[in-house]
């Protein structure tokens, strides 16, 4: 392992009772990259982050974070890590500024220095005008931005983001994405968990798709798309879509998948399908390029995970 490797996990296993949540995980982050852990609910993403932070002990395997063995040296490692948890846990008794100030203390950063960092962090979070405001009055997006700013109070080299945009509206989500790109430009290494494929495709240099505690595919988003799926997708909607798929779609597309009244046709050359759909005129369709979500659904299946 390279000394500069921000995070490396090998042979990681973790069970709760008889249920194995993480089943032999291997991955490594490269300095300055954004690495995405993708997976449906219950795939073991959050447990993996907790293991890497030393908040729970693995049953087997090794973790090295910023050159330090975890969980033995977790406390030292966490001094250089920023964490954006899945659910906001800002301190509701405090103002925006106090939240940053108190969090800085936990890192033993001198009070003076924390105070000096706060204006930049407030700017970064777009909350400069709300420094003295109580947390309860902030919108969901503002809270997320403050949580992100709070994770930067110790100027971390490595930042863990556990579903950072879940529950945000599109505007707020785009702002978070823009901020994360800024952090990457500053040379920070990001470990992101998400189940928004668009998010992963926009932000991540590399992604690992997890399911049932295992990594089932790993690579850059374009490489995964090329490797796992046909390049073109035609989505067909309508009452007779299934019937059309049986009589025509299946014979021309490489693969057809259906959910309800929608058929997804994966194909290299969509022209014959489109010609037929245009001729019929009774089915709506959408032709697009294959994306990471298609890969994700192919690899993890379309069944509900709740």
């Amino acid at each position, binding site marked *: 392992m390279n000394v500069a490797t921000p995070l490396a996990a090998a042979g990681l296993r973790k069970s709760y009772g008889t249920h194995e949540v993480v089943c032999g995980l291997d991955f490594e982050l490269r300095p300055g990259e954004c690495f995405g852990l993708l997976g449906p609910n219950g795939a073991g993403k959050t447990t993996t982050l907790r293991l890497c932070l030393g908040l*729970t*002990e693995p049953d087997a395997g090794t973790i090295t974070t910023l050159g330090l063995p975890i969980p033995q040296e977790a406390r*030292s490692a966490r001094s250089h890590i920023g964490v954006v948890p899945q*659910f906001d846990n800002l301190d509701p*008794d405090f103002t925006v500024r106090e939240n940053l100030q108190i*969090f800085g*203390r*936990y890192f033993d950063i001198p009070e003076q220095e924390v105070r000096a960092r706060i204006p930049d962090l407030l700017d970064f979070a777009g909350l400069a005008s709300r420094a003295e405001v109580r947390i309860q009055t902030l919108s969901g997006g503002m809270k997320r931005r403050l949580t992100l700013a709070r994770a930067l109070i110790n100027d971390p080299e490595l930042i863990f983001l556990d579903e950072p945009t879940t529950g945000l509206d599109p505007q707020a989500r785009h702002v978070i994405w823009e901020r994360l790109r800024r952090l990457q430009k500053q040379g920070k290494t990001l470990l992101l968990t998400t189940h928004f494929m668009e998010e992963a495709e926009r932000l991540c240099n590399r992604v690992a798709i997890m399911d049932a505690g295992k990594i089932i595919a790993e690579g850059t988003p374009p490489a995964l798309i090329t490797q796992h799926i046909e390049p073109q997708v035609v989505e067909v909607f309508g009452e007779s879509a299934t019937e059309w798929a049986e009589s025509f779609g299946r014979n021309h597309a490489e693969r057809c998948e259906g959910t309800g009244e929608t058929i997804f046709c994966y194909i290299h050359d969509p022209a014959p399908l489109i010609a037929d759909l245009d001729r019929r005129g009774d089915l709506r369709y959408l032709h697009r390029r294959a994306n990471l979500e298609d890969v994700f659904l192919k690899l993890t299946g379309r069944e509900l995970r709740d």
Partner: protein
Amino acid sequence: MATSHWTLPLFSTRFVHVWRRNLLVWRKLAIPSMLGNLADPLLYMFGLGYGLGRMLDDVGGMSYLGFLAAGIVCSSTMMSASFEAMYSGFSRMHVQKTWDAILNAPLTLDDVVLGEMVWAASKSFLSGCAVLIVAAALGLVPSPLALAVIPLVFLIGLAFAGLGLIMTALSPSYDFFMYYFTLCVTPMMLLCGVFFPLDQLPAAAQAFAQLLPLTHAVSLARPLVAGVVPSAWPLHIAVLAAYAVVSFYIALALTRRRLLQ
């Protein structure tokens, strides 16, 4: 429970940051909080002290009000530490997830639980001392020996904070704490010599009371308030200290099981 939950605690001075966090919240509400903490014990003290005290010549060699004051110093410390460790602690642990946020920083759960325990003891220290000050102002504290009650109050606070944190670690919701109050706190109020001397109880109840921390707290505070060195004081201190240490250890192990899964 996994053996790793029972690993001996490893502290850092960062527990102080947890304590300071709670202090900052408290400072915002200090005045109403202090008044609220003081109102209840003073109502008991004056209500029972004057009302009941008129019917009694003296109790245990002192005026009933003086007798009661020493007991109320202990019981209000117990109440305040228990409330803080349970209701407020549960809010921070479970509802606000404040502990989760802290654990992402370079603190361990050992630091957090210690910080919470010392904080709850500190808050109860104010309650206990406030009652003592009122008693002194009423001329119920004849001797400077009563100054020894001040560190004692902190120790009492630690013992009950530790017990409260055990309940917090086990609690599924706020309602759970009612059991502890009904089954532990209220019986202790009545059995441990706060309102009347222990020797009024049947022998079996007296023996049982010797197992309870509040008995030992009262056994120390009452003579000190009256200006007498308590008999068997090292034993009473040892019992309270043991309650504090053992309850901390159990609370920590249970909280580890709950949060560090």
